[in-house]
């Protein structure tokens, strides 16, 4: 049993400051005032609060505002019973600052890596029903912008069937929007914009682009991108504002190049399987890259800019498609001349479809 003199105490019930002596009895202690004795209190309930002027301030679990302030050299037996001082808090104090900083860096890098890589494994695990519901919610009837004629639909159906083994779980539509673009959305939805179909010089060009978008669907790129975006939003949510958004965009951009290459590979394989020449798709990219190089500032319409931003590097992709040509193979056109005309003029013929767009893609 020992007594320590230089201590101040607030009991948490009133703001009266009390000069006390700490009387230690085993694992418990009393606080002695001239005429009063507070306690007993258990050392196991004591917690470190803060450092104030030259005193360490301790609190007591479950007693709001209870304070014991010890200044000067604290005797060893009392010191041994008190909890450790807190500096950075929990983990950092236990590891030490340097080790904690390294550990946090590694953990952060691992978290970012998981978010970037796991969608590849996670996306196939998402049930098709969720994918479809999301697609329905997003696309619906596209504000009545889908074009439809019996002959045009039949031509599109034939084209899809030649490019994919399970055409039934794909919804391919042509939208009456004058943009050179095409998108793959959740639920097997592929939308070709009329601007792209109109400017195509052969059905083979449309087949290549369509097979590319089907590639996005089959490789589950849409769900991957969605998961990745959400994961990055969570992981980088801690970084404020612009820097977070910037990092986020850069990371998801670098990803989309990769999936573009995958979709291109899928497209070349599908064209090969359908006996459609990839030369059409190559010349399509050729024209795009010419427009991109020469006319980007003056005559460019938003159509090209739109396709370029989501499908970059047209020239190198053109080379890839050219290389996939098999010499001596007996290619046949993707559609007959009549079918092609029907598909190309479908949106002109369908007067009920609404035109233009009141929204932005990104």
């Amino acid at each position: 049993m020992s007594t320590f003199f230089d201590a101040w105490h607030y009991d948490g019930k009133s703001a009266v400051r009390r000069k006390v002596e700490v009387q230690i009895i085993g694992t418990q202690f009393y606080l002695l005032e001239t005429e009063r004795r507070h306690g007993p209190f258990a050392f196991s309930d004591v917690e470190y609060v803060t450092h104030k002027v030259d005193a360490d301030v301790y609190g007591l679990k479950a007693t709001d505002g209870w304070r014991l302030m010890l200044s000067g050299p604290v005797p060893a037996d009392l010191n041994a019973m008190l909890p450790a001082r807190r500096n950075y808090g929990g983990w950092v104090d236990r590891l030490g600052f340097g080790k904690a900083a390294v550990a946090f860096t590694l953990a952060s890098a691992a978290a970012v890596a998981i978010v970037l890589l796991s969608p590849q494994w996670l996306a196939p695990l998402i049930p098709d029903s969720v994918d479809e519901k999301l697609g329905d919610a997003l696309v619906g009837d596209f504000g009545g912008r889908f074009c439809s004629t019996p002959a045009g639909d039949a031509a599109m159906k034939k084209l899809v069937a030649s490019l994919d083994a399970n055409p039934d779980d794909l919804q391919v539509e042509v939208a009456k929007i004058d943009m050179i673009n095409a998108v793959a959305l959740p639920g097997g939805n592929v939308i070709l914009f009329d601007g792209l179909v109109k400017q195509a010089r052969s059905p083979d060009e449309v087949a290549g682009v369509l097979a590319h978008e089907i590639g996005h669907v089959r490789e589950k790129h849409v769900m991957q991108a969605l998961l990745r975006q959400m994961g990055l939003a969570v992981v980088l949510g801690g970084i404020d504002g612009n820097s977070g958004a910037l990092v986020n965009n850069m990371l998801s951009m670098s990803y989309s190049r990769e999936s573009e290459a995958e979709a291109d590979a899928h497209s070349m394989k599908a064209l090969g399987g359908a006996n459609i020449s990839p030369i059409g798709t190559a010349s399509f990219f050729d024209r795009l890259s010419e427009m991109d190089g020469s006319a980007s500032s003056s005559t460019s319409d938003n159509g090209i800019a739109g396709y370029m931003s989501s499908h970059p590097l047209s020239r190198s992709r053109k080379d890839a498609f050219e290389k996939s040509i098999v010499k001596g193979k007996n290619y046949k056109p993707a559609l007959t001349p009549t079918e092609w005309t029907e598909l190309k003029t479908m949106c002109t013929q369908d007067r009920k479809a609404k035109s233009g767009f009141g929204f932005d893609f990104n």
Partner: protein
Amino acid sequence: MNDDIFQRHSAFRFHGSWLEFARIAFPNLLLTIVTLGIYRFWATTREREYLWSKTEFIDERLEWTGKGIELFIGFIMAFLLIGLPLIVIQLISQGLIFRGETILAAVITLMMFLLLFYLTGVAYFRALRYRLSRTYWRGIRGGSDDPGFQYGLAYMWKSMVGWLPIFLLVPWSMISLWNDRWNAMSFGPHRFSATAEWKPLMKRYLLFYLVPFLLFIGAVVFGISMAASGGTPDALGGTGMAVGAIFAIIGVLSFYLFLPLAALAYYSKYFRLAVGGLRLHNLEFDFRARAPDWILFFLANIAIIVCTLGIGYIFMPYRNWKFFVDHMEAYGEINVDELTQSETVVAKHGEGLLDAFDVGAI
């Protein structure tokens, strides 16, 4: 025992030094970076612990007992309860626009905006409540039993009323909301009473409000007097053009200079009136910073940030707190026997909502 406040110096005194603060702020910055921002909750807590412990009220330092984990949980809650639903609502309204249901989408977006507006009000209230409940003086803390949901409604309608007559009633809404907020708060057994008046604020507000018009009128008068003095560009030659250009630059600069200055002049008056209307039992408060103090403070902050290429930003919490404490004043007396522990509930989570909306507390 009565503690009378001697008027030789303010009841509030700040004893911190920026060198000590730097030893907290720089490791905080490093840990925040390597944890992708997650450490910032603990960083904030460490900074407050330091600032509070260096703040003396009468004869005892303040204590900050908030925990990093509380702020972290608050942030997670805000993300789950507000962030995620917002993302879902945004997806739905985008889908509706896709389908051409623009009106429904607009209604949903408006509802979302109103909800955010309401929650911003609640967040302001709860941040103040959280801060008071974690601030101890002589073992006694503050708080409020009001969850702030009513205040959220008041925040909505009073802000609207403030804006409706071409923003002329903004001073009324600001003062009235300050009073609402503080009237719900207490420290120990005593409730705050906030009775600030808004009418004395109108003159400053009109000054701020009219600055753009005054500048415009000044420019017109200057132009007319130039013309009247017979100075045509031809007659004055190159020097005339130069003088004209200089005046144009001064005009633009003064717009960007006078407007913030007028805003600061208004804010200094607002804060003085708001704090001046505050009472706690037998204590009255005063904030002595006047417009020139605020302007100097503001300019020094900008200079520090610019000269340190932005790193000085980490000292802003220190500078803000020092400015606040240095100019705070209290009169009256406290009976420490009567100052008993607060009975208010202690919320387990911190300023999550506020953190999510990125607004300041006082």
